[in-house]
């Protein structure tokens, strides 16, 4: 925990030289002091953090554990169907209570002294509370109701369960904004989601580099050449980016229509001078590229990036919730939950298995992200006192765009981060 007297000193370690956030100080990505300040200001602060999808805990007692920053959280369902979340740390001596990823239990019992908590996080029983034969036990002033687990506020949207530590956090739909609300509804409310798999990727980079990555359609057609060759994303493609009122959340989308497919000679011009684009690459088995989209609204990709660590992504015909779990300033776990739908036909379910090859740590159009972030973290550590450059798409005002090659939404992320970390009152 950062002492409040130190916060000013920590923040004073860097400057933000431009008010449009087209320059970002590199120390933000590798200095342990900023990481610790983030744990307090961002993760324990007025933010909504993804925990699970409600389809993972359909029944009474079903629980999942997940991370909000460095804090492990239990989320579970009670008898009346309500969802509760609390810190996975005993109110007695701090012991981690649930040491599993998921399961079912009617109560949570600390393994150390068997203090028992109900599914609302309330302390239900303390062994030997009254002592034995009048000896020992807790003092008369001990009241169980004063020793419940640290509870979080919980709200859901499209089945996605979010929690916040702060009483100040605005209602979830206001926090997410209208684009998130309508896209979550488009992706998750039309059908009945179910989990078809989990995936974990340990990336040797700061958690904010991943936030930049998902707000950066500029890189998509340059780093991920596979998708260019097969028309999933092209530098000339229609699309755009829309943000919420705080510019912290981004809806990044691309649309492929018949009239804007680019000829291979035009594409070759974009990549001239690099050795990356090979116009002759062909799939030996094109089945993977021919899986029809479930939804007929033309969106080839939809990336909803929700500050600070959640992404709901439709990439081609894959559906996934991505969640970042920071592991110190130089490392982040990308935890992915793949979704299908109860209504899927056998053919659609197989199609989703095929298109799973597009995404994740081995995904044809995503595997290089982990590598790019590792190289970025490796390089920027040498640049204390210096700043990254975010000017693609224009500088100055942070506003929505109807084009893809831009870094404006990254500046949107920094604008809100800067405010939340308290740099403004520096």
């Amino acid at each position, binding site marked *: 925990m950062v002492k409040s007297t130190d916060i000013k000193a920590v923040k004073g370690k860097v400057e933000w030289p431009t008010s449009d956030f087209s320059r970002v100080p590199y120390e933000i990505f590798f200095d342990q002091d900023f990481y610790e300040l983030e744990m307090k200001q961002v993760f324990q602060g007025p933010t909504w953090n993804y925990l699970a999808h409600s389809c993972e805990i359909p029944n009474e007692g079903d629980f999942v554990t997940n991370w909000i920053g460095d804090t492990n959280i239990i989320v579970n369902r009670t008898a009346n169907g309500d969802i509760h979340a609390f810190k996975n740390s005993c109110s007695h001596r701090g012991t981690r209570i649930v040491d599993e990823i998921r399961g079912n239990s009617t109560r949570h019992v600390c393994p150390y002294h068997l203090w028992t908590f109900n599914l609302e996080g309330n302390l239900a029983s303390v062994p030997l509370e009254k002592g034995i034969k009048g000896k020992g036990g807790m003092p008369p002033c001990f009241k169980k109701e004063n020793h419940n687990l640290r509870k979080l506020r919980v709200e859901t949207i499209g089945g996605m369960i979010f929690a916040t530590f702060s009483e100040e956090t605005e209602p979830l739909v206001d926090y997410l904004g209208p684009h998130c609300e309508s896209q979550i509804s488009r992706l998750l409310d039309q059908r009945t989601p179910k989990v078809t798999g989990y995936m974990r990727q340990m990336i040797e980079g700061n958690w904010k580099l991943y936030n930049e990555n998902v707000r950066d359609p500029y890189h998509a057609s340059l780093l991920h050449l596979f998708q260019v060759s097969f028309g999933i994303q092209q530098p000339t493609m229609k699309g755009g980016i829309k943000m919420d009122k705080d510019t912290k959340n981004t809806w990044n989308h691309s649309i492929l229509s018949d009239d804007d497919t680019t000829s291979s000679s035009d594409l070759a011009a974009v990549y001239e001078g690099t050795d990356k684009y*090979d116009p002759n690459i062909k799939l030996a088995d094109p089945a993977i590229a021919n899986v029809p989209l479930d939804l007929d609204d033309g969106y080839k990709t939809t990336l909803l990036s929700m500050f600070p660590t959640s992404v709901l992504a439709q990439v081609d015909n894959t559906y996934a919730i991505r969640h970042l779990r920071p592991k110190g300033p130089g490392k982040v776990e990308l935890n992915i939950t793949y979704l299908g739908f109860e209504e899927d036909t056998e053919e659609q379910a197989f199609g989703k298995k095929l298109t799973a090859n597009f995404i994740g740590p081995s995904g044809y159009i995503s595997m290089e992200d982990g590598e790019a972030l590792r190289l970025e973290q490796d390089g920027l550590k040498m640049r204390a006192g210096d700043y990254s450059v975010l000017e693609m798409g224009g500088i100055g005002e942070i506003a929505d765009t109807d084009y893809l090659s831009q870094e404006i939404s990254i500046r949107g992320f920094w604008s809100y981060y800067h405010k939340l970390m308290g740099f403004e009152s520096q």
Partner: protein
Amino acid sequence: MKKNDLQIKVERFLFDYADCLNEKRYEDFPSFFKEDNCHYEVQSKENEDLGLTTPIMGCYSHGMIRDRVAQLINNTLTYRRLNLRHFISNIRIDEGKTEIDLKANFQVMQSDLEGVSELYLVGRYEDKLILDHNELKLISKRVILDSFAIPNMLAVPV
């Protein structure tokens, strides 16, 4: 074929498979699979134990297996230049009427360009092989990872 002879033949097949990957001869990788009928899948132990089916890599035809290594062969992928070395052990075979069931453990070490080595992956193989003109071919290879928190990326087959 005598059980012992088959065991030796299968072990040699696995070691040749490992060498193909260790030596980055990705163009040879598809030849370990039977051309008209083969699967290759990499799955996490987490999903496997939960009965969840979305794979890390899933190739359900010989063409898809060729596609999986295409970017490695033509060098259009951005990935870390590591030397990988497979160690395969605990090899057990069960001979059915037409297929050979193979189970084995594996470990893959990674060594970077400056010679620093560390563990990359650990897990098990669950394979089905057939003898095709006295040559072993995979009709199904399932790679189930204990180390399913993938370090950075998994660009290459295992």
